[in-house]
């Protein structure tokens, strides 16, 4: 019997697992996908918002502000790259100016450090901004990180401290018993005292497994993006927001922790939780809105497009509570933006909910294991040479665009969490995320994966189940092709 089963390995599930790992609890994380963090958390703006934006008094406001503060320490402890680069929210007309002043008040009420800044100041800091800008709101605590870096660090650490993580395990059914649940997946059945529903877009679906009254209705809103190549360091230096509207934060310009820039997202209601397509209309919308704020956008540097889907609910706030008619089923639903920024605080809240019901002791051997990932391209030459002597595979570059070596890829495959797919490797160590998008390195990575996992090349997946890259071997019987 598990004490706690967390459904979902997104940023919320991962933070919860990390927090619970320190107690004497038997904790299980179930994830339907092959790799962890392959849901909402992999496709968003990756901003740790400062917290001036959510309406004062909401859970979103409270947890965002708290979460932003908590990131400083947790990223340091776990050795995850995190930068507080600050943000400018910009007003270009009178109406927006008025809105912005209101936001400034929100900021004060939410307890967030912000400053109203004049045009000259903005243009000095961000010379590409259109000089029709009238007013800006500067928030120095706005941060950026790679959401999946965070997830890997949290889950590696949870694993070291005894949490069990089972991927490719889709929860199909939950049976409510007297004092526990029986969770059935496509692989197995697990008994557990608590269920934590951190299933992102599928939170309503999971809730309906235990009750006919979930208490909310899930909606889906898609956001589409462009990714620019690295190397446009002069384009922007801060997160740039337009003045938000009723529809949300609008189209942003966001430097990423790896030196790329994101342009987007759109905000469009869709029917389906897996409509992760990009559309012509959506992408044009992004360009038009970017062009209204800033000059000199290096569109020729576009290397990728993607979209993400927000798990909004009709309650318009995060839902973090024990289900009314089902004790020990803890709901973590409607975690839309700023869900990433709020995740450490969400996890803290869930932890406290359990602490209020149980008296828990911490594990006496609990320890924090910071990430030790070798990043060759960030090391000084002497250090690189020392590493190559130890392991010559650190000397072989596999990904040209991002300078990633074979040694780093093998490390990822054999990390505690283990990586099995091409996209998993890409998220964990970055090959394939550069300008050629895997055109050169994908066959090499596929080969390394097959070799290290001791499986056939045709078994290697791009990401989800069924996404095998190679469909059949042509030369099994020593045939020689025909040409």
């Amino acid at each position, binding site marked *: 019997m598990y004490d706690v089963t967390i459904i979902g390995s997104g940023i919320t599930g991962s933070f919860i697992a990390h927090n619970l790992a320190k107690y004497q609890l038997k904790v299980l994380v179930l994830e339907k996908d092959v790799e962890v963090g392959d849901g909402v958390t992999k496709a968003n703006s990756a901003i740790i918002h400062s917290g001036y934006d959510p309406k004062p008094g909401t859970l979103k406001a409270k947890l965002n502000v708290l979460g932003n503060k908590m990131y400083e320490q947790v990223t340091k402890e776990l050795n995850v790259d995190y930068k507080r680069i600050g943000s400018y929210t910009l007003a270009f007309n009178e109406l927006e100016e008025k809105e912005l002043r209101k936001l400034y008040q929100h900021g004060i009420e939410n307890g967030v450090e912000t400053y109203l800044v004049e045009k000259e100041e903005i243009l000095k800091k961000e010379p590409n901004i259109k000089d029709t800008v009238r007013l800006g709101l500067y928030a120095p605590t706005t941060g950026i990180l790679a959401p999946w870096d965070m997830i890997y660090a949290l889950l590696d650490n949870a694993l070291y401290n005894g949490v069990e993580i089972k991927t490719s395990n889709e929860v199909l059914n939950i049976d409510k018993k007297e004092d526990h649940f029986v969770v059935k997946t496509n692989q197995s059945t697990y008994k557990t005292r608590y269920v934590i529903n951190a299933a992102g877009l599928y939170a309503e679906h999971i809730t309906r497994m235990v009750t006919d009254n979930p208490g909310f209705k899930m909606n889906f809103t898609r956001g589409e993006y462009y*990714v620019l190549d690295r*190397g446009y360091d002069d384009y922007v230096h801060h997160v740039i927001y337009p003045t938000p509207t009723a529809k949300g934060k609008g189209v942003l310009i966001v430097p990423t922790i790896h030196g790329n820039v994101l342009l987007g997202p759109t905000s469009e209601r869709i029917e389906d939780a897996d*409509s*992760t*397509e*990009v*559309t*012509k209309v959506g*992408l044009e919308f992004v360009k038009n809105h970017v062009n209204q704020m800033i000059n000199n956008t290096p569109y*020729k540097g*576009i*290397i*990728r*497009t*993607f979209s993400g889907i927000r798990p909004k609910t009709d309650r318009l706030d995060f839902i973090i509570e024990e289900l009314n008619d089902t004790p020990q089923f803890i709901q973590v639903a409607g975690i839309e933006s700023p869900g990433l920024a709020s995740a450490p605080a969400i996890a803290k809240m869930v932890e406290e909910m359990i602490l209020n019901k149980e008296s828990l002791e911490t594990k006496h051997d609990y320890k924090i294991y910071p990430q030790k990932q070798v990043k060759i391209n960030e090391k000084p*030459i002497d250090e*690189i*040479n020392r590493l*190559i*002597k130890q392991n*010559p*595979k*650190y*000397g*072989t*570059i596999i990904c*040209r*665009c991002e*300078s990633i070596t074979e040694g780093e890829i093998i490390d990822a495959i054999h990390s505690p969490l283990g990586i099995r797919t091409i996209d998993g490797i890409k998220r964990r160590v970055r090959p394939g995320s550069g*300008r*050629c*998008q*895997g*055109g*050169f390195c*994908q*066959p090499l990575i596929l*080969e390394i994966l097959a070799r290290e996992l001791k499986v056939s*090349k*045709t078994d290697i997946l*791009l*990401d*989800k*189940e*069924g*996404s*095998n*890259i*190679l*469909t*059949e*071997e*042509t*030369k099994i019987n020593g045939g020689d*092709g*025909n*040409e």
Partner: protein
Amino acid sequence: MNKQYDVCVIGGGAAGMSSALGAVKNGAKKVLLVERDIELGGILQQCIHNGFGLHHFHEELTGPAYAERLKTELLETNVEIKLETTVLEITKDKTVHLMNKVDGYQIIEAKSIVVAIGCRERTRHQIGIPGKRFNGIMTAGLAQRYLNIDGYLVGKNVFILGSGDIGLIMARRMRLEGANVLGVAELMPYSNGLNRNIVQCLHDYNIPLYLSHTVTGVSGKDRLEKVTISEVDENFQVKEGTSKTFEVDTLLLSVGLIPENKLLTDIQVEVNPITNGAYVDDQFQTNIPGIFACGNSLHVHDLVDFVAEESFESGKNAAKYALNQENNHISIPVKPASNVRYVIPNKIKISDDEVTFKFRVTKPMNKGLIIVKQGDSVIKEIKKSHLLPAEMESVKLNKSLFKPNSQDEIFVEVKGVE
């Protein structure tokens, strides 16, 4: 810092090998050729069809056979070859940072450097094909590598977007390996591949070519299931009611190649936005003295013979630079004019040598007049039939034809004639 070379050539494809040969045969004593792969040859290794070498070796060779010829010639020289070695960066004062598993990270010095690192394929994201990010959409060159080097098919029912040579060749290749190829769509009203490839890869196998068509939709669940194409008008706007749907599990993209130039742009080498390669003079020298570029990393070639020829020259010039390092010449700009997309070189130095202008036309022309001008005066006119954007044109002239003491720019243009 260790080892001083006369010439360091980066990239061991057709261009790099030819360039190293050009350097060593023109007096460079210490030449280093660096290649990241486990063997020399570059993209030729995966081009197992024939049709290479008609101009250079007067024979029809396969890609690997062509590479073998250059390699054999190279191994007879004293060029030092480093395989499985990646160049991470070069500097303006001509050091080369390289890394491999045996020597580790090294910085070497060279008197001149030739960058011959080839090109990459444009991807789905760069042309903004709408739709989901499911599996089954891949560049044609990547599929070619999986098939020809690794021995695997990437799908059974295939559609191809773009009629570049790689797409055309893969249409035939996948067909021969037992896949169904349902068609090739091309945005332009003409193909972007060599004529002989259209005949030998599509017509001979009854694979339809849909000109003025583009992909307007892709659908499926975890893997591609359907591709929809539609006709476009002169302004590339989709015509309503012209869509056709194909049930396929694979869409291959042959939508253009982009010269690799990161090593060069990192040190502020000027780049031509049309070719995406460096601006070079008639020595193939970039705006940084002693740094040269050639092959597909300079501009995308359709025939390897031209790569070899051009790169041999660049190696020769790199050797000359390494030996006397003079660089005090007057250069006259060369520019594309009507109906010409780009010209290489981008400037020439007046002397009594010959120069070859290479260029591409902007649209197909049945008959054309190629005109080379300096300022307003016509230097040379050449009549030509069948000018195609897919086929690189070249004009060889003696530089003494140009006005020596004039700073007037040189133009290459093409006039359509009836």
